[in-house]
């Protein structure tokens, strides 16, 4: 039974946050619906009237060129960026997981301390095997007690991605999750995504790499209003 967590306040001013009842649920397994989303940044309209929905089990790739607003769209969805109009409705009982361009982990703390803090932040009971298992899957078990600052860029990214295996959430919002990962790590991430989808979760991600999976696409170019060309000098 999906139940909306009342403490989630995404885009307070514009979003109508509603609760899903069981009758609706049988008809449609939407976890996130976006209607008529129009977003401005620095006076430029990035996209207008964007409408899409993310259902249980979906893998949605946000496509667009550099600067077209992919990251901003994800930040709109999780409520960080607030300069938008339209409707964003969440039907989830945990907070979405967001992985952006920033490290997401503290460089001064060890991998274990970082992940233990994450678990505590999300009120997940801490089992030592849980963290060790996920870190071992990421291939970082030998570095478990090393400070994150001593790790390479790709290893830090993997530590950040470890949260996907630790925290409960139906929707993952991943901004360029494949950047700076090696082949083994890409396979690891893909297997996590597949497992998440098999469990009814869904993933919204941006990437310039071609991913050979059955998935939906949201092309930002489809939602650019025609006036933009005329407005820009």
């Amino acid at each position, binding site marked *: 039974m999906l139940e909306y*967590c009342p*403490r989630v306040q995404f885009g307070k001013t514009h979003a109508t946050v509603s609760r899903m009842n069981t009758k609706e649920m049988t008809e449609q397994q939407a976890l996130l619906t976006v209607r008529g989303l129009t977003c401005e940044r620095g006076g430029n309209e990035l996209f207008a009237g964007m409408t899409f929905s993310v259902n249980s089990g979906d893998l949605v790739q946000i496509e667009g060129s550099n600067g077209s607003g992919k990251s901003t769209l994800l*930040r709109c969805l*999780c*409520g*960080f*960026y*607030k*300069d938008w109009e339209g409707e964003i409705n969440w039907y989830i009982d*945990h*907070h*979405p997981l*967001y992985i*952006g*361009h*920033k*490290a*997401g*982990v*503290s*460089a*001064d*703390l060890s991998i274990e*301390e970082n992940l233990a*803090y*994450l678990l*505590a*932040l*999300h*009120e997940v009971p801490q089992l030592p095997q849980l963290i060790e298992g996920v870190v071992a899957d990421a291939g970082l078990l030998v570095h478990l007690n090393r*400070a994150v600052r001593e790790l390479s860029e790709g290893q830090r990214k993997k530590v950040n991605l470890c949260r996907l295996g630790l925290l409960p959430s139906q929707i993952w919002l991943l901004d360029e999750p494949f950047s700076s990962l090696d082949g083994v790590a890409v396979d690891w991430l893909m297997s996590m995504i597949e497992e998440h989808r098999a469990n009814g979760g869904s993933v919204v991600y941006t990437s310039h790499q071609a991913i050979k999976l059955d998935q939906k696409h949201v092309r930002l170019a489809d939602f650019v209003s025609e006036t933009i060309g005329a407005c820009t000098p």
Partner: protein
Amino acid sequence: MSHLLMSFLRDFRSYLRRPGDLLAPLVFGFVVISLFPLGIGPEPAQLSVLSPGIIWVVLLLASLLSVHLLFQRDDEEGVLEQQILSPASLYFVVLGKVGAYWMMTGMPLVLVSPLMAQMMSMSGSGTLALTLSLLLGTPIVSLLGAVGASLTIGIRGGAVLVTILILPFYIPILVLGTAMTEAGHSGESMVFHGALLAAALSFGCAFAPLAVAGALSVSVEN
């Protein structure tokens, strides 16, 4: 409440791994105080009249040195985003963070204040009053600093801006702290000023984290 303790421990642990930035106020304060007997002259009569005001002003200025660092690292590392996008109450997370920051910046000042008082030729009761007033005053300074720091996250030149923003709010604390120290120094009762400082501290503990939490969720916009 567990979020308070957890955030406190996390921040305190990471501060201990790079104490340099945050211990700068202590060193700065200590060095500046030690210059006054040299500049004004070591006569106890002259020094002890000026000492409450001088020590308080120097320690306030010293605390401004590090206040912009309170949220900077967490913002750069994206930890702040993760804290906002979690079911944890931001209020308690912030309170824990400010607590850890105070343990690293305010507490050392309180601990070395008797030594500073001796350098400035203060009486025994004056020394006690100074330490007590700092014990009540420095947490307020940290809480107010957190409000300023949260408003200037990610702004270039934020260190200067935060100083201009919060310095006016330090004035009542400075007046009360100095008055309490002077009262103790001249052997009068310091209950009145102490009670006012304690009231300000309680008020700050209750409401400053609210303001900080609000400012933080706006600051992560970019």
